[in-house]
């Protein structure tokens, strides 16, 4: 809401700078977005009349002008081409300042003295660079030698307020003035609504029929013998400041009233109202209508129109029609001042793609009781401008008048709720300054809330009114009292923290990616068409295909991040993300949302690096037994370098080298390793309760064992056999060498373990160890065909 400051001062006496006023209104609830003081920087610019224009002797493009600035005649050299003798122009004198702080000094241009400069609208800061060309030519008859700020009204400034949707009453100069009066504890001045009319009766000229309740009120006035012309300079100036283009006196009056009081109005050319009848009705489906902007609109039956006997003449509350537009020869007009259902206006304007000053006011649901004041103000302005003769009588269809509502609030409750100690009398004063009639009986505030304050319905609303006029910043601050509560973090949240810490200490950086992805990501990671993982929650109005489904796996997001880094020449990357995925559920409207840990790395990495990281993580999370089983079916991964992660006999994730088909799709020419782990499964198995075991008192014995086995024999198989035969003296086993090559036959590998034995409560004897060790060796030979080698 743009409020020209001088206009505001018509209705309140405030002796403060525009900035101070803006700051205080912000603190009382009318937030200032911006204060624009056009003329603030401009000084020593006056109006001057060009007396002569002569060629510059030394430059083709320059001319020498003599300019009358009332007290003297000065010489100015210019490159401007749009000026003529007798033009009145803004003249920046020696020592003047223009918009943007530009300083002007006298000097010589190609040897000829120049005592200033002519200004364009851009230089005065009242137009954009690309909208004007050349020097600003002022109206004929503009007095010369006057300060340009006075002439152009650049000394006022405007305040742009951000008004919240609940305060329809503040979308007007008068509404803001009311707030200002309450804020600065001054009186709000009345609006001049006086006028006189002839002794005819509008009802003899016009019938109004309201056929739909979406029109809550419809009032009309008639003006005869209208003289359509430009409105006076002051009115044009104010409208321009408010961001509205002046058109002619009649249209300008409707706009002036709208800006001033917040009530949109419309003027119809009476001549074109067929049947002397206005009907407010729903449009017909596919009814065609040309709005004032020249666009042909197709209406439908959800939209409200203003029609005459034959045709629509306006889309109600949005825009009038070309067919009844006010033109220079218009003689008789009908002023419409109506009230419509806000939602209906909003939906219509949305459907038509046509948001106007009027519709944006109506859609906030303005007060139907504003109609009289607005209509009277319009008539008052007609009279003031001498724009026509007002026909007596009013048409006013207002079936269900809105009445002020009553509300009783206890002052002590307000203080208790706010944590304040405001006297009830003071509350009364504050409320009355907002035009809420207040009768204080004891502790009780008995309120009559005016109809323009539909947002004040319950006692909390009243508390807010009091709080904001009292000043939020005057409310004391205190620490919450009452029962002490201990802040807690859920187990999952703690475990996630451990995950992050472990990943970070392993050298990984955390990333965060969007939860929505393109359905094409499944193609990129080579998931077959039939795979259930493609069944995702779809967004019905996405920003684009790339953000159209909620991910069911976070692997594509990780691949994307690695691809971005790879394409930027980063040659070693270790990343992780705790990523939510969304799995649709059969029997629930909402999907299951679970956290996945995704780890990704490339550059100097191999399978065992990522596996080591996962093993460390499982350790940190207190997962007692985590198994890794060969996985050769997952299409995302290398068939020979991938493992399923198994915890408590359930698959909890996958890790491995990404399939080259997939890395190709992401243009990564490196081996990439990824793990995706279901944190839910991991957290369920996590046990962080540690128990101390006493340190061993007796020495251990270590034996190494090296054997030749077939290539396909896995470490897991060997270790299972060692464990199964190690009896209770086996303490630990450690793989320390795997070798293929010289001295090892084709299809075989050499694999070596160090086995540590220890007994509780005694020192092991050699014979005892030998017996167990031999049994292990024998089992390895028998079950795996292992051939023992010398260590």
């Amino acid at each position, binding site marked *: 809401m743009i409020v020209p400051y001088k206009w505001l001062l018509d209705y309140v006496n405030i002796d403060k700078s525009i900035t101070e006023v803006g700051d205080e209104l*912000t*603190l*009382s*609830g009318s*937030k200032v977005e911006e204060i624009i003081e056009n003329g603030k920087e401009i000084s020593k610019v006056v109006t001057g009349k060009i007396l002569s224009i002569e060629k510059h002797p030394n430059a083709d493009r320059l001319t020498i002008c003599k300019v009358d600035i009332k007290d003297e005649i000065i010489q100015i050299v210019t490159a401007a081409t749009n000026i003529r003798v007798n033009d009145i122009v803004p003249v920046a004198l020696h020592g003047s300042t223009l918009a943007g702080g530009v300083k002007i000094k006298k000097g010589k241009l190609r040897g000829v003295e120049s005592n200033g400069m002519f200004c364009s609208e851009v230089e005065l800061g009242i137009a954009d660079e690309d909208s004007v060309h050349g020097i600003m030519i002022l109206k004929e008859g503009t007095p010369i030698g006057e300060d340009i700020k006075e002439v152009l009204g650049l000394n006022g400034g405007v305040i742009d307020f951000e008004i919240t*949707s609940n*305060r329809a009453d503040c979308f007007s100069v008068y509404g803001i003035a009311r707030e200002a009066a309450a804020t600065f504890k001054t009186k709000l001045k009345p609006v001049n609504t006086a006028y006189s009319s002839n002794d005819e009766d509008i009802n003899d000229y016009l019938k109004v029929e309201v056929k739909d309740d979406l029109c809550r009120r419809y009032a009309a006035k008639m003006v005869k013998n209208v003289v359509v012309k430009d409105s006076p300079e002051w009115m044009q100036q104010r409208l321009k400041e408010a961001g509205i283009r002046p058109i002619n006196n009649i249209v300008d009056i409707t706009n002036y009233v709208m800006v001033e009081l917040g009530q949109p109005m419309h003027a119809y050319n009476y001549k074109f109202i067929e049947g002397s009848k206005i009907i407010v009705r729903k449009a017909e489906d596919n009814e065609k209508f040309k709005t004032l902007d020249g666009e042909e609109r197709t209406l439908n039956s959800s939209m409200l129109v203003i029609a005459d006997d034959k045709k629509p003449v306006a889309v109600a509350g949005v825009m009038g029609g070309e067919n009844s537009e006010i033109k220079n020869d218009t003689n008789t007009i009908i002023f419409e001042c109506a009230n419509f259902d806000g939602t209906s206006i*909003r939906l219509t304007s949305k459907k038509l793609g046509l948001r106007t000053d009027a519709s944006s006011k109506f*859609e906030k649901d303005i007060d139907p009781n504003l109609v009289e004041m607005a209509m009277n103000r319009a008539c008052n302005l007609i009279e003031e401008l001498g724009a026509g003769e007002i026909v007596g009588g009013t048409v006013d269809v207002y079936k269900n008048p809105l009445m002020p509502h009553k509300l009783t609030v206890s002052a002590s409750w307000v203080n*208790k*709720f*706010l*944590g*304040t100690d405001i006297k009830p009398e003071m509350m009364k004063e504050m409320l009355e300054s907002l035009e809420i009639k207040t009768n204080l009986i004891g502790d009780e505030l008995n309120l009559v809330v005016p109809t323009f304050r539909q947002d004040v319905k*319950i006692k*909390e*609303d009243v508390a*807010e009114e009091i*709080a*904001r006029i009292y000043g*939020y*910043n005057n*409310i*004391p601050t*205190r*620490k*919450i*009292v*009452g*029962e002490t*509560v201990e*802040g807690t973090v*859920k187990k999952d*949240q703690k475990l996630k923290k451990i995950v992050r810490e472990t*990943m*970070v*200490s392993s*050298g990984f*950086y*955390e*990333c*965060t990616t969007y*939860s*929505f992805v393109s359905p094409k990501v499944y193609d990129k990671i080579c998931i077959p068409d039939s795979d259930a993982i493609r069944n995702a929650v*779809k*967004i*019905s*109005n*996405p*920003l684009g295909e790339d953000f159209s489904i909620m991910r069911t796996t976070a692997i594509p997001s990780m691949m994307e991040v690695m691809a*971005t880094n790879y394409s*930027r020449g*980063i040659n070693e990357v270790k*990343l992780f993300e705790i990523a*939510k995925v*969304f799995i649709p559920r059969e029997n629930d*409207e*909402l*999907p299951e*949302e679970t956290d996945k840990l995704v780890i990704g790395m490339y550059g100097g990495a191999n399978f065992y690096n990522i596996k080591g990281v996962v093993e460390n993580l499982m350790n940190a999370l207190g997962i007692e037994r985590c198994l890794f089983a060969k996985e050769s079916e997952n299409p995302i991964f290398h068939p020979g370098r991938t493992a399923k992660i198994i915890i408590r006999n359930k698959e909890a994730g996958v890790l491995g080298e990404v399939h080259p088909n997939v890395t190709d799709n992401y243009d990564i020419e490196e081996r990439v390793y990824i793990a995706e782990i279901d944190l839910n499964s991991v957290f369920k198995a996590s046990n962080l309760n540690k128990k101390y075991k006493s340190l061993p008192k007796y020495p251990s014995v270590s034996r190494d064992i090296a054997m030749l086995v077939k290539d396909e024999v896995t470490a897991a198989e060997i270790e299972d056999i060692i464990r199964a035969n190690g009896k209770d003296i086996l303490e630990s086993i450690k793989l320390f060498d795997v070798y293929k090559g010289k001295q090892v036959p084709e299809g075989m590998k050499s694999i070596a373990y160090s086995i540590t034995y220890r007994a509780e409560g005694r020192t092991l004897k050699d014979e005892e160890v030998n017996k167990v060790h031999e049994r292990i060796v024998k089992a390895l030979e028998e079950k795996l065909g292992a051939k023992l080698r010398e260590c």
Partner: protein
Amino acid sequence: MREELENIRTEAMTKIKKSINSDNLEEIRVKYLGKKGVLTGILRGMGSLSPEERPAAGKLANDVREEIENAIENAKKSIKEKEREQRLAFETIDVTMPGKANPIGGVHPLTKVLDEIQEIFLGMGFSVAEGPEVELDYYNFEALNIPKNHPARDEQDTFYIKDGVVLRTQTSPVQIREMEKSKPPIRIIAPGRVYRSDAVDATHSPMFTQIEGLVVDEGITMSDLKGTLDTFAKRFFGESTKTKFRPHHFPFTEPSAEVDVSCFACGGKGCRICKNSGWIEILGCGMVHPDVLRRGKIDPEKYSGFAFGMGLERLAMIKYGIDDIRLFYENDLRFLKQF
């Protein structure tokens, strides 16, 4: 004999003095004091002396032995010291060369800031709650006083899944879910992702993170709201931070406010970060609307509460001076490594 001993002494002492390493000294020791050494030989020859001469000669021989032994010992010590000095000098390295370690990684800047915020609120007795991101229209809108056709729905540009199901546009639905399942006193914060169909640019992201806060108890006042958020601002931005509460409107709180903090960069004088205003807007808040309490099965006549919500990205951008929100979701390692 005496003369012989004196000669040995002089000779040995000279050699000891000249010796340059422990090996030399060992040779000297063997030569003079060893089993087959010179001194031993002389002592062996003592038998040829007269009994009167023996004690004196014996003493002298022992003196000489002791003297040589001591001299060797001392020389050994000093040589050892010298040798150690030499070794240490030889072992000098360039300490300005870079160190070696297993490089550690880092958490995302958003996590970092969130942790900091959580820590502050945990310290004030808040617990951490969560809610779904794919949310029922009821929790995201209706229960928060935003019925169908309410203008706030347009403002928030909602992503719809289907009728009645949306991507939550705010973390406020967690308020209702939390009230439904627990009784006052309630003191929670609920961080999480929210979604709005804003086109991506330097300050807009269709997905971002909010932190919701909710306190419900008997006798909670607007003073408590102010005190809590003032404390938060001081802990997060620094003890000298000032807060400013401006009236605002949210459908689910009444009264409602927006909170500005004094600019931590310029202290309120005005700079680029605060756009010359001296203040930075950081959050919205208010007293929980009685309708909202009722929908959470809490009696507004008995209890009152306050709620607040802030944008994590915005706080992180302010804190670290980041000027483009897209950097958070692009995950360029060179960006991630800076935090």
